[in-house]
């Protein structure tokens, strides 16, 4: 079940960016993934919320998944994040 490792990698990248930009709250995280990827948005949000539930910066953030990569492209791209500064 690799939603855990996706969330782990996601947080590593986002935490660094939030520190650099003095972010108060993350509201939305937009991910672009391969159209055939098995990553499920509800599952991912469920696991993400469980992990960040005590963190005021991330606890209300919603992850949205767009299956927008070309079929041959692999990867989970963080397109952008909606933040409160």
């Amino acid at each position, binding site marked *: 079940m*690799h939603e855990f490792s996706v969330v782990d990698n996601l947080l590593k990248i986002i935490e660094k960016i939030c520190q650099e930009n003095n972010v108060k709250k993350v509201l939305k995280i937009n991910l672009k993934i391969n159209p055939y990827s098995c990553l499920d948005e509800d599952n991912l949000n469920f696991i993400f919320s469980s992990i960040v539930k005590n963190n005021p910066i991330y606890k209300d953030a919603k992850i949205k998944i767009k299956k927008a990569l070309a079929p041959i492209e692999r990867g989970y791209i963080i397109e952008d994040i909606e933040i409160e500064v």
Partner: protein
Amino acid sequence: MIKILRIEENLLSENEKIATQVRNILKEKKILSLNIMGAPGSGKTTFIEKTIEILKDDFKFGVIEGDIEGKYDSERLEKFNIPIIQINTGGSCHLEANMVKNGILNLSLEDIDILIVENIGNLICPAEFDIGIEKNIIVSSITEGQDKVEKYPLMFKTSHICILNKIDLLPFIDFDVIKFENDLKKISSQINFIKLSSKTAENFNQWIELLIKLTKEKIS
């Protein structure tokens, strides 16, 4: 104040970085590497066994075995007296580049012409993770049904070679090989398609000839 921060960064960038390291190491050592993927029970290990059995006096093999638990598959290959590394992921449903990198660092690469990585039995997740191995080979089989290309397109899209195994069972199972091949060509016009039986060796030579050609190109 609310704003949008553009990031455009791949979550898997760490994996990609390590995959590139693996790729470079194998390229420098002129090793042909194969990533064998397929559903549990498709015949990956038997395919590997037969391949090594036929070519063991021609080329030096090394194997990295990936399983969630146990060393059943690596024990099957021990009789060939070749270097084998068993990776147990303990739960992860696919191999990642760092696991394969650790594997190759524990092998004497000077003594290997062909590195075979047997990935976790799974038609979904292994296709999403680049492990730095040169040729992706999907082993599908007659007993899985003819609709696998339609149902698991990423696996077939990202593979260079598709082996359709267990053709000795065609007289007993309803399987439309033409439909399977058409679905395959629709998803990837470049993929190399070989139908064979690892058990009876029917048409196995077509695969062996391809492997010899690929290996000679690599080590020359």
